[in-house]
C-alpha cells in the first residue's frame, strides 16, 4: 500500500474523515493537558520569572510556522512532478495554518521579550525572520486568491513556494548577519540568547515534558486542520467543476 493511493481525492477524503475525530480529540487533549500542566504545575525560571510559561505556546507555534512551509514546499514539488491535485490543494489548505502559527510565534515572541527589552518590538534576528516568513505566507495566499484557473494557480503558487523557499532561507542568514552588526546592550543579548536558543538551550526536565506535550498537541492540531481543510478545498474544486458541467448541459 503506497501513499500515492491517497492522491485520489475520494480516497483521501474517506480515509482522513475517518481519522479526523480522533485527531481533533487527541490534539485538544495534548494541547489542553500540556498547557494546564505547564501553566499551573511548573515553577518559574530564575532569570525570566513566570514569563517562561510562554514557552509552551511560543516554541510549538514557531516550530510549526517553519515546518508548515516545508510541508508546502514538499507538496508543491509533488504537484509539479506528479500532478496530484490533492497535493496542490493540501499546500493551499496548509498556508493559512502556517500564517496563524507565524502570527502566534510573533505575538508570543514580542510579548515575551517586552519585559526584557522594554519595548514591544525589537528587530532581533529571530523575530525579524518570522516577520519575513509572515510576508511570504501572505504573498502565497494572495497568489492563490488572484488566479481563476485552478491548475494554473496550483502551478504558479508551487513555483512561488519553490523560489520563495530559497529566498526565505537566504533571508534567515541575511537577517542574522544584519543584526549582529548592531552594538547590542547586555539586556538584548541576554533576551536574544534566551529566545533565540530556547529550542537548543538545555531546558530542564520540569519544563521539557509539558513542552513536549504541547508540541505533540500542536502537530496533531496541524494535521487535523490540514486534513479537514484539504477536504474542504477538494469539495470546493468539485463544486466548480460541477457548476461548469451544469452550465454546459443547460
Amino acid at each position, binding site marked *: 500500500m503506497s501513499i500515492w493511493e491517497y492522491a485520489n481525492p475520494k480516497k483521501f477524503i474517506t480515509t482522513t474523515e475517518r481519522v479526523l475525530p480522533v485527531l481533533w480529540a487527541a490534539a485538544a487533549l495534548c494541547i489542553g493537558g500540556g*498547557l494546564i500542566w505547564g*501553566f*499551573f504545575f511548573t515553577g*518559574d525560571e530564575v532569570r*525570566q*520569572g*513566570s*514569563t517562561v*510559561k*510562554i514557552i509552551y*505556546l*511560543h516554541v510549538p*507555534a514557531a516550530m510549526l510556522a517553519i515546518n508548515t512551509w516545508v510541508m508546502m514546499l514538499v507538496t508543491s514539488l509533488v504537484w509539479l512532478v506528479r500532478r496530484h491535485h490533492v497535493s496542490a490543494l493540501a499546500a493551499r489548505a496548509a498556508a*493559512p*495554518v502556517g500564517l*496563524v502559527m507565524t*502570527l*502566534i510565534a510573533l*505575538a*508570543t515572541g514580542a*510579548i*515575551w521579550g*517586552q*519585559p526584557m527589552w522594554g519595548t514591544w518590538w525589537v528587530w532581533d534576528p529571530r523575530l525579524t525572520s518570522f516577520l519575513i516568513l509572515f510576508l511570504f505566507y501572505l504573498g502565497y495566499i494572495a497568489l492563490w486568491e488572484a488566479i481563476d484557473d485552478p491548475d494554473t494557480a496550483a502551478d504558479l503558487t508551487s513555483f512561488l513556494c519553490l523560489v520563495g523557499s530559497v529566498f526565505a532561507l537566504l533571508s534567515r542568514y541575511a537577517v542574522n548577519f544584519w543584526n549582529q552588526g548592531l552594538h547590542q546592550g547586555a539586556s538584548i543579548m541576554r533576551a536574544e540568547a534566551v529566545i533565540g536558543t530556547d529550542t537548543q538551550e538545555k531546558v530542564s526536565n520540569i519544563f521539557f515534558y509539558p513542552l513536549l506535550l504541547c508540541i505533540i498537541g500542536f502537530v496533531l*492540531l496541524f494535521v487535523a*486542520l490540514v486534513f*479537514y*481543510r484539504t*477536504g*474542504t478545498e477538494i*469539495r*470546493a474544486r*468539485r*463544486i466548480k467543476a*460541477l*457548476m461548469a*458541467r*451544469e452550465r454546459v*448541459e443547460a
Partner: protein
Amino acid sequence: MMPDLGKYGDTVMSAYVASIVLLVLLVVISVIRGRHVRAEMDKIEKRVMGNG
C-alpha cells in the same frame, strides 16, 4: 489555584489569551467554511447527478 505570576502576570496572560484566541479563530473559521462548502457540494451534487 492561579499560580503566582509575580510582576509578569499581564505579560503571561496576554500571551496566552492572544495565542488561544488565534488558535480558536483558526479552527472555528476553518470549520464554518468547511461546513458551508460541504453543504454546497451535497446540494449541487444532488442537482447535477440526481438528474441522470
